[in-house]
């Protein structure tokens, strides 16, 4: 019978087939970070259990790490203790930990792929909802809770119920200055923040094929904002070229064996999806959120919708008016970074816009590379100098203003153009207002001091 990619990945990892009910699924890879695992390790300790296969796990601190003065001791004692706890837990359980100063640190969803830890065809989990990012490689990847992290460490399996499938086809070609971020926001705007609950999304179509791995990761990263735990792109030559030669990727004859398996990882031509959504990529404009849920989003040439009863709270919080455009809205902050848009291509797109300009007076603009490797890469290309010259701050890697758990926090009422993935109330600081958009759009907003259409500001 014809099978979707999701079904193939599912079938290949069934330890106990529960049919329509929960099945026991084998987990090949587990990424750990400091926030979601202290209690998982405590669980193992209470039950006196070892980690079954420590070599399938990789840990890094990202959420609470400072992005400045990394040569100094961490100022917040709770953050310092949490990071130290991850390191010591990993040491006691034989799990590899990438230290803050070792050159390999970064946001968990950025380092997995760059290390070749994320591979096509694997099951990968992490105590973080944006684990969907890794689906860009054709891996079955999803976020789990802390208890499940403990279960995976002890048993290497999880009870999971098979999702329904949704294919999202992007037809045509993306226009200039429109990116994977806009594709994601356009989709979420179309189907809603819970539009894909219970479904595994497979992204397909020419505009997806044309995306780099970075773009595909951005797209899959945001699947969770449409309610789907899993986003998938079938692996192809773009994928294989990205994975080849990475530190933890197979090499030699193992590479060839892997490759021949990976080539079969695609939905069969006559496979049926439970739902199908078609979006014309050539009609997508840059998108910007106006509210406090990622589906409260409009094309930059549109206007904030009417509908006070439903949107009232969000509109009040964001201080935006129904019927008004977002273009022209003054901003106080700009943030370029996160597991959505903190990779080298994102920094290039932003630097491209920032080059030769200057951040508007009164605007504070941060660039936070997704990993130490991204930072080195960007510096080798001179992007750090472009940003610094244009008045942006150039920081050390971490989650930073995406989640405001470290000391990067915005004051109440501040308005921020941000490349992150969640515009929830208080996400960037209590009372702070977040407008999600692409790296090019954020850079353009930083220079203008207000929300602008990057297409016209570049024309």
């Amino acid at each position: 019978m014809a099978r979707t990619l999701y079904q193939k990945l599912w079938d290949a990892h069934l330890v106990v087939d529960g049919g329509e009910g929960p099945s026991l699924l084998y987990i090949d890879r587990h990424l750990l970070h400091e926030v979601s695992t202290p209690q998982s390790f405590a669980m193992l300790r209470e039950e006196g259990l070892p980690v079954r296969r420590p070599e399938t796990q990789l840990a890094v601190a990202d959420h609470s790490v400072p992005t400045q003065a990394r040569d100094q001791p961490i100022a917040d004692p709770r953050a310092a203790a949490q990071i130290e706890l991850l390191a010591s837990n990993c040491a006691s359980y034989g799990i590899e930990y990438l230290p803050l100063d070792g050159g390999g640190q970064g946001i968990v969803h950025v380092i997995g792929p760059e290390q070749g830890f994320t591979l096509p065809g694997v099951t990968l989990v992490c105590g973080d909802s944006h684990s969907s990012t890794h689906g860009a490689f054709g891996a079955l990847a999803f976020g789990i809770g802390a208890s499940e992290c403990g279960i995976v460490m002890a048993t290497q399996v999880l009870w999971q119920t098979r999702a329904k499938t949704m294919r999202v086809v992007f037809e045509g070609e993306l226009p200039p200055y429109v990116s994977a971020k806009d594709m994601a926001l356009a989709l979420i705007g179309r189907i809603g923040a819970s539009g894909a609950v219970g479904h595994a999304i497979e992204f397909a179509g020419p505009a997806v094929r044309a995306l780099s791995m970075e773009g595909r990761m951005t797209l899959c990263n945001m699947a969770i904002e449409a309610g789907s735990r899993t986003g998938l792109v079938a692996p192809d030559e773009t994928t294989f070229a990205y994975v080849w030669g990475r530190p933890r990727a197979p090499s030699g004859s193992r590479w060839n064996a892997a490759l021949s398996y990976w080539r079969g990882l695609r939905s069969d031509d006559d496979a049926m999806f439970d739902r199908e959504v078609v979006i014309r990529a050539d009609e997508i404009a840059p998108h910007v959120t106006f509210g406090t849920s990622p589906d409260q989003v409009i094309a930059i040439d549109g206007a904030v919708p009417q509908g006070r009863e439903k949107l009232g709270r969000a509109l009040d919080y964001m201080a935006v008016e129904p019927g008004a455009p977002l273009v022209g809205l003054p901003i106080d902050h700009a943030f370029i970074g996160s597991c959505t848009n903190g990779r080298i291509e994102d920094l290039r797109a932003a630097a491209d816009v920032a080059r030769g300009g200057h951040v508007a007076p009164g605007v504070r603009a941060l660039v936070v590379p997704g990993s130490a490797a991204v930072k080195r890469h960007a510096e080798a290309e001179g992007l750090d100098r472009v940003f610094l010259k244009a008045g942006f701050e150039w920081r050390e890697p971490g989650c930073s203003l995406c989640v405001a758990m470290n000391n990067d926090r915005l004051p109440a009422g501040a308005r921020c153009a941000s490349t992150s993935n969640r515009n929830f109330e208080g996400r960037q600081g209590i009372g702070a207002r977040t407008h999600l958009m692409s790296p090019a759009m954020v850079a353009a907003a930083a220079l203008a001091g207000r929300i602008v259409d990057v297409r016209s500001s570049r024309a």
Partner: protein
Amino acid sequence: MTPLTRVTGQALSLPQADIDTDIIYPARFLLITERTGLGAFAFYDRRNDPAFPIAPDLRKVPPFLVAGPNFGCGSSREQAPWALDDLGVRVIIAESFGEIFYSNCFKNGMLPIRLDTETVTALHASATSGGRFTVDLLEQRLRVDGLPPLAFDVAPAQRAALLNGWSEITRIQSLHGNDIASFEAAQRRAMPWLW
């Protein structure tokens, strides 16, 4: 884990849609590495919001929560169900849930129940008027004053785990230890590149 078989009490109505786990448990409290006592931080930034019916007096939170659609969406943080558990919430009823939150509830002895829009609307009304809710997990029935008994779906394994208060790890290891070992042997042969 404390078994859950039958729960009786009043319900809190929280009809707003898309209450995400950042609202249930704000990120800055994630620096805490414990899992107990987190109720003190639940809905922290909404406590003084008159439109939000979580009383500043958290001792008054009843065992049932009737929530709006997509409750618990967003971040996977298990601190959200831990905090609700700490407040004494045992059963959460909504039209839909964030999926990770939904499965996190079961891991902590809490029962999430999905029901259709119309029923949930009726339950919000019962909750607001102080109606008594009873859930019987053995019978898989929810009884609410003035309404006919309501059946709900729950996966058999998750139901059994709640009823017995089982530790999932111990269950998996004793029932499926051999299945896991033979899966690993086969995968190692078929996909040596993964090992």
